[in-house]
């Protein structure tokens, strides 16, 4: 089965991200495909590379990045949500004349159409968050 995933919560306040990661690992282990993860609301904060959690804690942003590389998963951050919350890649940095960018390797910033497309393309769209 082909899965699309939506993550609606920030990485540490809420357990939604880790639950989504666990779901994806299990789905892939059972031979399913995860086509795309779409990060919305505070979920966009899963894609910053400036998080430095304590060493005995999970680094959720890095975990996403590694997971995406290992299983070729498209990690998409919503541009409208990202602009409100200060997530930027090269393109956003240039467009909005910011003094830097903070996106984690393996993520990309794009529009809400990517979420709708995931709904159309996938057999199941699974939403994580309240």
């Amino acid at each position, binding site marked *: 089965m082909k899965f699309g995933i939506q993550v*609606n919560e920030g990485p540490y306040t809420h357990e939604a991200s880790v639950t989504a990661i666990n779901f994806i690992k299990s789905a892939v282990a059972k031979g399913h495909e995860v086509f795309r993860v779409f990060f919305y609301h505070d979920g966009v904060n899963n894609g910053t590379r400036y998080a430095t959690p304590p060493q005995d804690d999970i680094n959720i942003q890095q975990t996403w990045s590694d997971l995406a590389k290992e299983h070729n998963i498209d990690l998409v951050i919503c541009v409208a949500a990202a602009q409100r919350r200060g997530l930027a890649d090269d393109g956003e940095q240039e467009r909005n004349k910011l003094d830097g960018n903070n996106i984690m390797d393996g993520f990309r910033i794009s529009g809400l*159409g990517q*979420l709708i497309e995931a709904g159309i393309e996938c057999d199941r769209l699974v939403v994580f968050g309240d």
Partner: protein
Amino acid sequence: MSNVKKFMYINNKAPYGTIYAWESLEVVLIGAAFDQDVSLMFTGDGVYQLMKGQDTKEVGIKNFSPTYAALGDYDINKIYVEKESLDARGLTVDDLMHLVWEDEDEDWAEKDSIKVVTSAELAEILDQQDVVLSF
């Protein structure tokens, strides 16, 4: 086109206090460009999103409620509100904004978009959906 799916957006949170309601509406508006079969469902505190006469001046948050009136122009005209949620909050459909759409097949007759349905009816409607997004 065979690629048309039934999309249902569930809205169950109050309009202000968190951003979910507003960012949900943004998804609905963008999603309208994809020509899918779209329904919206309002349950729990989500029914407050459709209240008429919203005024957010005192809280300093953008009042996005006028945007719901545009849904009809985006061919989004299946807006379900759960009766039990209205009842529990002492509300009726008269407390909600009057949302309409124009039916192309009936000489652009103006029709109501909001339907008040019971939770049992909502369960049946949900069962028919292909994609359910909850906010």
